[in-house]
């Protein structure tokens, strides 16, 4: 026991406590001082380590929002499934960004990279599914003369479908070109797409031959191939209306399209590059005055028109924000009620040791909260339950020690000796029972259903913290109190009789 009662251990515990209180408290002081809401993400919130912010992440059942599990089907042949899954996640991310969701969670799942889980706070299931599941169709168009067209990317011309679509694109990536100076977007086509693209570019060059960089006549509208998303025949038929074209030629607008009604006109335009030469290998490069961001945006835009897989909905959970807020209130109330009952009971039944154990519980609560913020653990209803139950287990270790303490006193030991013997002899039971709980937590965390995993994580963290609080903190506090002889009286220690010193 000398190890536990040594000053280095005490200093570590005090350090942990100070760190926990800092992590728990600093954010709230900042929030109150700046009149920010007391929960959720606030930019610039301290403690802030290089953009890593600490606050309690609430799960959807507490925050309200939508959770969807998708099954990916129709994987393209000959590509790594992990890559395809990543690309699909990027596309979904891009689409979801249009909703303005705070911290969308889009994760790959499934043993075979065949699942994607989406968590969106504050969005209804209807909105979410419309946005994510919306099949944007990417089309390549060429330009055909129409003298009545006065507006748009190429006045005097209207677009025409070429048969080349998003289905023919394998992927688009933003990268730095060979000179190492400029950002470009590389587009690679499938075999089928490469054939069409070859024909189109040959026709482009034939329309006005020459090098467009040096010969002015070589830059004609027919030498361009434009990319639109969701462009319909109706749009093309309306190309002579300048107001209509002005709107359709705006950059592609996901938010507008997901809330589309028959009368709204949304931007559908992506890019309209000129063809420099015939391209037969199926790999095209779009260059221009790109920044890193604009190149990446274009690549994502092209990819978003081509989800590489089909998405099939497995399950949807939509929680209203009122229900979430109510759950938070109820579980907070249950937690506080439980904690106060436990504290009251411990103090009445065990007197001074009970009071010290209650103080240790406060250390425990502060430490666990700090761990939840630092990891960070996303708190769900089941997770809060795990936390409350770990309080029960924290108390259990103390009850074991204190019952043993009473026994040792009854057997005739002095109070300090009884404390020491109680901690030492209660230890094997505490160690074995908590090990079994930790093992259960690890198993549940890995193979349990998702709802149970949150429970396992908080319970596991709670058990570790409770071991520290009940063994190290309580024992040290007891040892310190024991040095004051006035506190060593049997009535304060909750024991009936004691052998005179």
């Amino acid at each position: 026991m000398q190890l536990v009662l040594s000053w280095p251990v005490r200093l570590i515990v005090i350090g942990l406590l100070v760190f926990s209180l800092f992590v728990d408290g600093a954010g709230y002081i900042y929030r109150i001082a700046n009149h920010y809401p007391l929960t959720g993400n606030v930019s610039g919130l301290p403690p802030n380590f290089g953009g890593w912010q600490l606050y309690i992440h609430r799960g959807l059942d507490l925050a309200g929002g939508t959770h969807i599990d998708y099954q990916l089907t129709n994987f393209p042949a000959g590509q790594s499934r992990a890559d395809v899954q990543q690309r699909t996640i990027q596309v979904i991310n891009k689409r979801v960004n249009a909703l303005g969701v705070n911290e969308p969670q889009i994760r790959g799942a499934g043993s075979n990279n065949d699942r994607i889980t989406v968590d969106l706070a504050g969005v209804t299931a209807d909105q979410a599914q419309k946005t994510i599941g919306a099949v944007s169709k990417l089309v390549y168009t060429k330009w055909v003369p129409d003298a009545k067209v006065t507006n748009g990317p190429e006045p005097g011309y209207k677009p025409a479908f070429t048969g080349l679509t998003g289905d023919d694109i394998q992927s688009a990536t933003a990268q730095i070109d060979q000179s190492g100076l400029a950002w470009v977007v590389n587009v690679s086509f499938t075999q089928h797409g490469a054939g069409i693209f070859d024909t189109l570019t040959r026709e482009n060059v034939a329309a006005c031959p020459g090098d467009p960089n040096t010969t002015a006549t070589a830059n004609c509208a027919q030498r361009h191939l434009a990319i639109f998303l969701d462009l319909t025949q109706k749009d093309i038929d309306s190309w002579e209306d300048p107001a209509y074209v002005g709107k359709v030629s705006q950059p592609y607008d996901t938010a507008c399209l997901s809330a589309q009604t028959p009368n709204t006109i949304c931007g559908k335009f992506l890019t309209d590059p000129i063809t420099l030469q015939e391209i037969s290998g199926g790999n095209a490069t779009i260059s221009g005055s790109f920044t890193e961001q604009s190149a990446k945006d274009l690549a994502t835009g092209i990819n978003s028109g081509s989800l590489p897989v089909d998405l099939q909905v497995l399950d949807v959970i939509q929680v209203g924000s009122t229900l979430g807020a109510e759950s938070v209130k109820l579980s907070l109330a249950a937690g506080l009620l439980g904690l106060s009952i436990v504290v009251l009971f411990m103090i009445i039944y065990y007197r001074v040791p009970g009071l010290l154990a209650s103080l240790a519980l406060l250390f425990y609560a502060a430490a666990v909260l700090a761990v939840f913020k630092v990891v960070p653990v996303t708190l769900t209803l089941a997770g809060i339950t795990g936390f409350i139950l770990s309080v029960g287990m924290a108390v259990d270790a103390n009850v074991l020690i204190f019952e043993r303490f009473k026994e040792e006193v009854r057997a005739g030991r002095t109070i300090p000796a009884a404390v020491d013997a109680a901690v030492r002899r209660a230890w094997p039971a505490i160690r074995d029972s908590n090990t079994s709980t930790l093992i259960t937590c690890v198993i549940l965390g890995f193979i349990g259903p998702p709802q149970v995993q949150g429970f396992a994580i908080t319970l596991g963290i709670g058990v570790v913290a409770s071991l520290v609080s009940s063994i190290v903190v309580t024992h040290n506090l007891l040892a310190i109190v024991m040095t004051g002889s006035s506190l060593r009286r049997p009535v304060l220690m909750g024991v009936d009789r004691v052998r005179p010193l």
Partner: protein
Amino acid sequence: MWIVSDLSDVNASQQTADIVPEVKPKEQPAPQPQAEPRVRKLNIIGRRNVFFAISLLIIIPGIISMVAKGFLLGIDFAGGTEFTVHFPGQPSVAVVENAVAAENINGSVIQTGGGGYIIRALPLTPAQQKIVEDDLVRHVGPMTIQQVLEVGPTIAGETIGRALLAVVIASLAILGLLAWRFHNIPGGWRAGFQFGGAALAALLHDVFLLAGIFSIMGKVLGWRIGEIDSLFVTAVLTVVGFSVHDTIVVFDRVRENLRVSQRLSFEQIVNLSIMQTAARSIITSFTVVLVLAAILIAGGATLKGFALALLIGIVSGTYSSIFNAAPLLVVWRRLQPLR
């Protein structure tokens, strides 16, 4: 690993002396009877068959109900769509039921009070959900949607499978841990597996008792609180954790007493150990029961079934550790003597 501090005034020979007088209370009355809790004189091992019978009396009807009737499954196990809605107009059940029946979605309606309803139906596509929602507003009145769950059959099957797998693997791990922890006593690994096996039996007692009672409540009595879902699985696992805690505390005491009191028979040692740890087991469970009772009375509707499951399970867990696990260890020892 534990260094005896200089505060200790007891040596090993005195430790034996602590315990031996307590086992023969009739021959050697304690010097101060009021200091000795009365429970110490109970002979639990001697009346073990009574305690086994009590457990079986509750578990067997439960198992019959489980086999014959199964469980009332929550939405995440059964699959389908569940709307949790609130009508500020507080319509009657009949009005809502009529509106749902008109939808032809095989729907059922559960009233949660204060204009709150839960509507269950087949799995619906988002478009179908929207139609149902719109129709409800048209036929019943304005409503707020608090929660919509849609669980496809794939996920439902997977949740059940993973939950069962988790319980089985966790049980085996606990058996292994106890066998390893207790193989250092006389009898070696065989003794270790006796301890682990008895703990596992107590654990299964709690799982079957809890599942049985919920099967009876859900299917025989038709109470909605007997519905089982992921939260119920969480409750079962928590109960398993607590039950094992209680059992380990008793067994740890048996291990300690085996070392220090060589003169006692195995039965006496086990009975003594139960008596020495009963106060702790009951106090710990009592604090947890207080918290759970608070949740059961004051908590929200979603947590009530969960709190009830924990309440039953924790009481059962404490009972099984004291009255089943330890007596079972004695029975096992008789059938398979080690010393």
